[in-house]
């Protein structure tokens, strides 16, 4: 795992890494990919990928009805910055 790759992944994941962290993740992600590389040993010809542990029990859909009431003040009490019911973020459009 090259330094450049770590930087690319960290960017995709929106994670700021400091200089000291990069070699640590280079080493540990290399180790993890060695581990997951063992999957190549398995013959999976004709095996269907499993996305859900209870096959056959299809995920339900519910009726399209309003079930939640407005509680934005309560939810926004956890937000770092709110004004007039709006979440504040740095300016996006100049």
């Amino acid at each position: 795992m090259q330094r450049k790759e770590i930087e690319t992944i960290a960017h995709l994941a929106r994670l700021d890494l400091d200089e000291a962290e990069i070699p640590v993740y280079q080493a540990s992600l290399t180790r993890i990919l060695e581990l997951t590389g063992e999957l190549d040993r398995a013959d999976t010809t004709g095996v269907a990928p499993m996305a859900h542990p209870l096959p056959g029990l299809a995920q339900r859909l519910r009726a399209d009805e309003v079930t939640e009431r407005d509680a934005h003040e309560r939810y926004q009490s956890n937000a770092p910055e709110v004004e007039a019911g709006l979440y504040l973020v740095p300016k996006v459009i100049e």
Partner: protein
Amino acid sequence: MRTTLAELSASLKSRAFSSVELTRRLLARAEATQPSLNALITITADIALAQAAAADREIAAGRAGPLTGIPIIHKDIFCTDGVKTTCGSRMLENFVAPYDATVVEKLRAAGMVMLGKANMDEFAMGSSNETSYYGPVRNPWNPGRVPGGSSGGSAAAIAAGLAPAATATDTGGSIRQPAALCGVTGIKPTYGRVSRYGMIAFASSLDQGGIITPSAEDAALVLAAMAGYDPRDSTSVDRPVPDYRAGLERPVAGLRIGVLKEFFEKGLEPDNERSVRAALEVLRGLGATLVDVSLPSIGLSVPAYYVVAPAECSSNLARFDGVRFGYRCKEPRDLLDLYRRSRGEGFGAEVKRRIMTGTYVLSAGYYDAYYLKAQKVRQLIASEFERAFEIADVIVGPTTPTAAFELGAKTADPVTMYLNDIYTIGANLAGLPAMSIPCGFTGGLPIGLQLMGPHFSEERLLAAAHAYQRETDWHRRSPPGHE
């Protein structure tokens, strides 16, 4: 001797003591052990005493159920209305949940008394409780050892007698491994048996809530109140919940116990193997038959898990953006800087490692080689379990390869830590119910016995564990100083 939840329930019913008295005693214990064990992140004394007083009124009115007035600790991954819910992370250091998880709501409705919130590995990612932002939990059997993880606070709390029940969650072994390392009983139900609503998501196709208690009978009592269909969790299964306590009396005689060849190969410590084999003999003595089973691909469960779980985690944890809730960095330059620094500063090292692993395996060009391949191997393993359960009713073996290890022993290399879950991950990949119960000691540290069954066989597992606990007293032993 450790008191069970069932015994406390009988004492409350007979008015030997009140729920308020019991709650006060346990709150004092929690305060006293906090500096040495660090099992809790939050103690909710006011809520506990109010709920206990209400429970005493129910008992006095003759309306008590088996859980009325029984204290419980919730893993800090479950949202608790109006109470700080950190998930072991700096990211949620100031997060006060605006609603209750279904599990919390159901157990409160059953009359249980919330003492506090248990410490845990950050976002449930860890096997030693060392990734918690709030410091590691110590093993009550030996403070130099880890309690296991990620539900390390829950398991340590039960071992130290801080409560007779603690909720927990299990994505790759996070209920069973700490239960084993702390010498207590833990059950991870079938995927979908217990609602995940309000349980902070790590890997949604693997996560399952469960319970840690002193005994299997206790687990049966609490699980009966936790389990069931929840319209707010689309993956919860709409299927009646059996009377788990009545099911405890199912006989072990005639039960076909699968002994999994691959779990007794290299890596299993000799003392652990001896205790597990002795436990198998106890079950045989009760009339069970032992049959050899094999899961040829089980050795690939750790590699498959470390693709699937990080992939799902990288997606689930994308919600922590420093905007709607959680940690926000100081003076962000622009929106990208806000995201990157809030996440970089708010998440700990292991969480970042898993997010990056997941991002990598899902990225263009690697998806088929890693993610799709892992999903196919997951299917292989699930199919092998299905075949094994044609000849065995339950599979019994070790929960972990070793007893509790020293703090810091496995933090240098993440893969060494990951391999600690080698026996537990298979049940998560296949969505199976599994439990761990104490079956011996090595060097003063507990050893865990794992029981796994087909989907929705919780009754059978609990009955076998209960029968074993009638014959043995490992689950009754308390750590020195925590009697």
